[in-house]
């Protein structure tokens, strides 16, 4: 394990990557506690707040004295061209912390109704604005992160499980096994990823629950991702299997799979970790792309991709630019994963430093 520890020490020295890791940690923490942090649940909408801009947070009362955090009510106006705009009214809605709100189940287990912050009805607090149905974009980003951020990790775990195993078996046994498995990989790699994604999605029936769709998309995404890794792992195994400790294990009667799992795959783990991190963005983007064109997560469930589908019209972006917030979070997560993955790969093998490819 000392190899890992050395790599970690080198990794920590890379400030930017370390910060990126921190940001990712924060994003996942927010995701985990989305129900508590978000002021609204997924289905909470308000017809009176269509495309409401981000709420202004006030701390000073009308007479200039300090009054604690509050937001004002808003009133919708239409001008002569039927363009919508919002003006603040004089109604004051103090921001309450850990007040009762809509009930939810924390981690799907504990029934709770406390929210980190909220305002009393009919006031609404929109930190990042509202979408076409008056739903809070901030809340939806947190809820959507559950899909967008976990699909990457889950997909990567599945596809790398397959990739490690196929690569390990191909590299270790060699010969015909290797030949057949590698041709299979090439066939998977040959099909352009996004079209394969669409084709596989088309094969999944429409009448699924959101959870089933989530699972289906994860599996579809992992089905395209494993081949690249399998090839690299195979290459590593070809050289690893000639190591004396592998031969020694064989002479002591260990089975082939035991040797692959105990003595070969663990030596590819540092590399795999970097490859895994660098592969996650692909899954996040894949899910976003699918959801964006309406084949992924369906309303009312949120994912960063399907939230962005509202932003497909330039006119809407013009008068409600805040609907682009999910794009910011996609970009942030993808960038952080890339920074962390790159830094980890450099830390693991300093010789690779500066080489652009993610292979």
């Amino acid at each position, binding site marked *: *394990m000392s190899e890992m520890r050395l790599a970690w020490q080198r990794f920590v020295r890379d400030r930017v990557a370390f910060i990126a890791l921190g940001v990712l940690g924060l994003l996942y923490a927010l995701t985990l506690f989305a129900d508590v942090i978000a002021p609204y649940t997924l289905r909470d909408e308000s017809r009176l707040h269509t495309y409401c801009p981000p709420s202004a947070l006030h701390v000073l009362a009308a007479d200039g004295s300090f009054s604690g955090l509050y937001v004002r009510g808003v009133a919708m106006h239409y001008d002569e061209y039927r363009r919508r705009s919002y003006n603040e009214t004089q109604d004051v809605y103090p921001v309450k912390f850990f007040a009762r709100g809509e009930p939810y189940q924390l981690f799907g287990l504990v029934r709770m109704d406390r929210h980190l912050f909220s305002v009393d009805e009919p006031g609404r607090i929109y930190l990042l604005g509202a979408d076409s149905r008056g739903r809070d974009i901030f809340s939806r980003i947190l809820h959507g992160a559950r899909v967008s951020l976990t699909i990457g990790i889950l997909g990567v775990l599945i596809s790398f499980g397959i990739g490690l195993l196929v690569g390990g078996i191909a590299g270790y046994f060699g010969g015909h096994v290797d030949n057949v498995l590698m041709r299979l990989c090439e066939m998977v790699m040959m099909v352009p990823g996004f079209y394969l994604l669409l084709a596989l999605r088309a094969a999944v029936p429409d009448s699924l629950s959101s959870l089933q769709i989530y699972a289906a998309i994860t599996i579809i995404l992992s089905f395209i991702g494993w081949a690249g890794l399998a090839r690299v792992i195979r290459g590593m195994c070809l050289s690893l299997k000639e*190591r*004396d*400790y592998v*031969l020694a294990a064989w002479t*002591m*009667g260990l089975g082939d799979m035991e040797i692959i799992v105990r*003595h070969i795959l663990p030596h590819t783990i540092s590399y795999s970790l970097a490859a895994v991190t660098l592969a996650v963005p692909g899954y996040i983007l894949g899910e976003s792309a699918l959801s964006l064109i309406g084949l992924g997560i369906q309303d009312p469930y949120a994912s960063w991709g399907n939230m962005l589908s509202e932003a497909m019209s330039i006119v809407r972006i013009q008068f409600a630019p805040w609907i682009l917030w999910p794009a910011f979070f996609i970009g942030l997560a993808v960038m952080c994963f890339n920074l962390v993955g790159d830094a980890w790969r450099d830390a693991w093998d300093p010789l690779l430093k500066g080489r652009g490819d993610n292979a």
Partner: protein
Amino acid sequence: MILQVEGLCKTYPGGVKALDGVTLDIRAGENLGLVGESGCGKTTLARVVMGLVAPDAGTVLLRGNPDRREFCRQVRMVFQDPFTSLDPRYSVREILKEALTLEPRMTTGEGLTRMRRVLDQVRMPRDILARYPHEFSGGERQRLAIARALMTEPSLLILDEAVSSLDVLVQKEIVLMLEELQQRLHMTYFFISHNLRVVRRLSRKIAVMTGGRIVEYGDRDAVFDRPAHPYTRTLIQAAFNYEVAP
């Protein structure tokens, strides 16, 4: 007769003839030393005997039996480079435990007793079970590799250049230790080396190999005093730097 090797042939892809009809017998207690220059097929022979390389022709029998499981239990191999023969990811305890793969199940206590015994035998302290290979020097690692080989009390130990990569003093210690172990444990050594002095010290029989063939095979003294093959003569001359009778 512990080991019978008959008519082994192996040609590597690319046309290198590593073994060309090798026939050998090893009797219990009669250490066989195999000498020859680098690339003459010594290591290939060891690997074919261990089943690591499949021969093109020929048979390897352990007490008349070709079964791999029996080989794995009764024949153990010590590799040349102690820096690559122990997996750096596992502790000494796990490395030693792995040697028991084919043994009947034993309790943790029994396993520990055995580990302590082999560590004593190779003169390593008993409290190193939780440590990792990188914490040891080359000589210590080779002792650990030998300890691992002793775990199942094998009847035949194949030492493939087992002391060649160590410095002279460590080499001497390990050779002395091997001598002592043999007397105590009644093992037979198949000792492969290009170091004639070590081979002479440890072996009763000598086989000389060149170009994938055994060119000379006989009792140690006979081979050293009256080498029959010209290649053996050159080898002995080179090693001991003295003339031998033609």
